[in-house]
C-alpha cells in the first residue's frame, strides 16, 4: 500500500483568499458572520445571517473560462492554483512546477448542488418565458459537476475526474476516496476540492428543520458557538478548500515536501434517518477510520469536530467523540468562526487543522462559554491552546445519514 501524503493546500474562506488568511482569522478569533438585510424580504426565512467571501474579484480569470463559472467554481479555481503552487506541481497547462502524468492523476471536486444563485436566475426566467432568453452558459453553472469541470477547464487539465456529492460530507468523503485511490496504486496525484456559495435557499433548508440560528440577526458575533449550552443553531457560509494528495514515492522522486499523511478514513451512510444524526453510527465511523489507519483511539491527539452549532447534532457528535477517543482528547469545531461552508468544510477544516499542527496552536471553540450539560467531563476547548499534536481526526456529517471521518498524521 502506498503512503498518501498531503503536499499542497489552498483555501478561500470568509477570512480571505489564502490559507494564511484562514489561519490568521482563526488565530485572531474572528467571526465571519454578518446580517444580510435583503434576506429579511424572503417570506418564512427566520435566519438572516451568513458568512461570505468578500472582496472576491473574479476578473483575474480569463473570460472564456469565467463565463461558465459561478462563484463556487471561481473560489475552487483560485484555491486550486494556490494548492498546486504550494505543492510545486503542474497538473494542467497554466501552472509552473513539476509536471505530472495526467493519466496517473485524478481531480475529485464536489459541491452540494450546482450554483444556487444561477438556479434561482435560471428558474426565474424559466417561469417567466420558458427557454427564451436563457444563456447558453447557465447549465454549466448548475450541473452537478460544475465545480470539477470548471476547475479542469480553468487549469487546462486533461485526465480522470470525479465529482462526488454528499452535501456537508462531500470534501471529507472526496479526501478519503482520493486516499484510497493512491493507496492502491491507481494514481500518483489526486487533487481534492470542495466548494459551495452562499445563498439564502441553503439557509432556508436548515431553517425549515429548525437548525439555522435564530434571534441573532443584530448581534451575530455574540452567537453562542458549537457545544455551548445556549447555541441557537448553525450559520451558513461559503468557500473552497483544495488539498493535493500524492503518493510518497512520487513526492520523493520529485523532491517535494509534505504537511502530513492521511492514514485512513471511513465514510458510511447510517440508513436510519435523513435529518436526525445517530450517535452510534457516528462513533462507528470514527472507529472504522481509526482502525483503517492502523491506530488505536488513544493515539488521536485532537478531534476537529463537524459540530455546526445545532442543538441535536452537536451533543450527539460530542458524545460520540468521547465514546470513541475518550474524555481527555481536545475537541473543537471551527464553525463558530467561519460558519458552515457545506461541501467546502471538509477540506477547509483539514487545511486549518494541518496549519494548527504546524503552528502548534489548537484553535478553540469560538463563543463556548458554558458547555452543554450532556457534554460535561470532557475536553471541549474553550480557548485556543498552544499544543503540539501529531495525529488528528476530522469529522464531517451530512443530511442523508452520511458520516465521514478522516485520520491525519502531521509532519
Amino acid at each position, binding site marked *: 500500500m502506498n503512503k498518501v501524503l498531503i503536499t499542497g493546500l489552498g483555501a478561500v474562506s470568509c477570512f480571505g483568499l489564502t490559507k494564511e488568511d484562514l489561519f490568521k482569522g482563526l488565530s485572531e478569533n474572528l467571526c465571519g458572520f454578518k446580517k444580510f438585510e435583503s434576506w429579511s424580504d424572503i417570506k418564512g426565512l427566520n435566519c438572516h445571517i451568513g458568512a461570505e467571501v468578500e472582496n472576491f474579484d473574479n476578473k483575474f480569470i480569463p*473570460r*472564456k473560462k469565467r*463565463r461558465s463559472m459561478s462563484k463556487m467554481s471561481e473560489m475552487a479555481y483560485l484555491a486550486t492554483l494556490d494548492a498546486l503552487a504550494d505543492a510545486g506541481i503542474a497538473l494542467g497547462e497554466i501552472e509552473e512546477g513539476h509536471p505530472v502524468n495526467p493519466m496517473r492523476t485524478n481531480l475529485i471536486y464536489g459541491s452540494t448542488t450546482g450554483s444556487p444563485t444561477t438556479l434561482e436566475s435560471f428558474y426565474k426566467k424559466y417561469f417567466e418565458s420558458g427557454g427564451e*432568453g*436563457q*444563456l*447558453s*452558459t447557465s447549465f454549466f453553472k448548475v450541473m452537478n459537476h460544475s465545480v470539477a469541470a470548471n476547475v479542469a477547464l480553468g487549469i487546462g487539465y486533461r485526465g480522470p475526474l470525479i465529482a462526488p456529492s454528499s452535501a456537508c460530507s462531500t470534501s471529507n468523503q472526496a479526501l478519503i476516496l482520493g486516499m484510497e485511490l493512491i493507496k492502491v496504486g491507481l494514481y500518483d496525484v489526486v487533487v481534492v476540492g470542495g466548494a459551495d456559495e452562499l445563498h439564502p435557499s441553503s439557509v432556508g433548508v436548515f431553517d425549515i428543520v429548525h437548525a439555522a440560528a435564530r434571534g441573532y440577526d443584530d448581534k451575530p458575533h455574540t452567537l453562542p458557538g458549537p457545544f455551548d449550552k445556549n447555541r441557537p443553531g448553525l450559520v451558513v457560509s461559503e468557500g473552497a478548500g483544495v488539498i493535493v494528495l500524492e503518493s510518497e514515492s512520487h513526492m520523493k522522486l520529485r523532491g517535494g515536501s509534505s504537511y502530513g499523511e492521511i492514514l485512513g478514513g471511513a465514510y458510511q451512510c447510517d440508513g436510519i434517518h435523513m435529518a436526525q444524526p445517530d450517535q452510534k453510527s457516528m462513533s462507528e465511523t470514527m472507529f472504522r477510520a481509526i482502525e483503517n489507519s492502523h491506530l488505536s483511539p488513544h493515539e488521536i491527539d485532537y478531534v476537529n469536530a463537524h459540530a455546526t452549532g445545532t442543538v441535536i447534532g452537536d451533543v450527539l457528535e460530542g458524545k460520540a467523540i468521547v465514546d470513541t477517543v475518550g474524555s481527555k482528547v481536545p475537541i473543537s469545531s471551527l464553525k463558530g468562526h467561519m460558519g458552515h461552508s457545506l461541501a467546502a468544510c471538509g477540506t477547509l477544516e483539514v487545511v486549518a487543522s494541518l496549519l494548527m499542527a504546524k503552528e502548534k496552536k489548537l484553535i478553540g471553540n469560538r463563543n463556548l462559554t458554558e458547555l452543554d450539560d450532556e457534554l460535561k467531563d470532557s475536553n471541549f476547548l474553550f480557548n485556543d491552546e498552544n499544543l503540539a499534536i501529531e495525529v488528528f481526526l476530522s469529522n464531517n456529517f451530512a443530511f442523508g445519514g452520511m458520516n465521514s471521518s478522516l485520520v491525519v498524521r502531521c509532519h
Partner: protein
Amino acid sequence: MLSKEDIIVRVNETFVSEFEIDPALLKPEANLFTDLELDSLDGVDMLIHLEDNMGVKFDSEVFKEVRTLGDIYTKVEQLIAQHPEMEKRNSDTV
C-alpha cells in the same frame, strides 16, 4: 426610431460589457470569430444580450449568416425597419 449611429453604439456597448472586448477592436469589418475571438457559445449568448440591451427579439436563423460586426449593425437596422412594433417597444424601453 433608432438611428444607425444609435444601433452601433448599443451593439458596441453589448460587446464591451458582455464579452469584455477592447473598444478599439470594434470596427465594422471585424470578424466576430477571428478578430473578436467569439465562439459558438458566445454566438448564442450574443443574441440574448443584444435582445436584452436593445429590447428587440431576434430570429436566430437570420443571424446564422452574420460574420462581421458590420453584419450585425445591418441586421439590427433591417429588423427594426421591418418591425416598427419592435421599434415602438424599443423606444418604450429606452
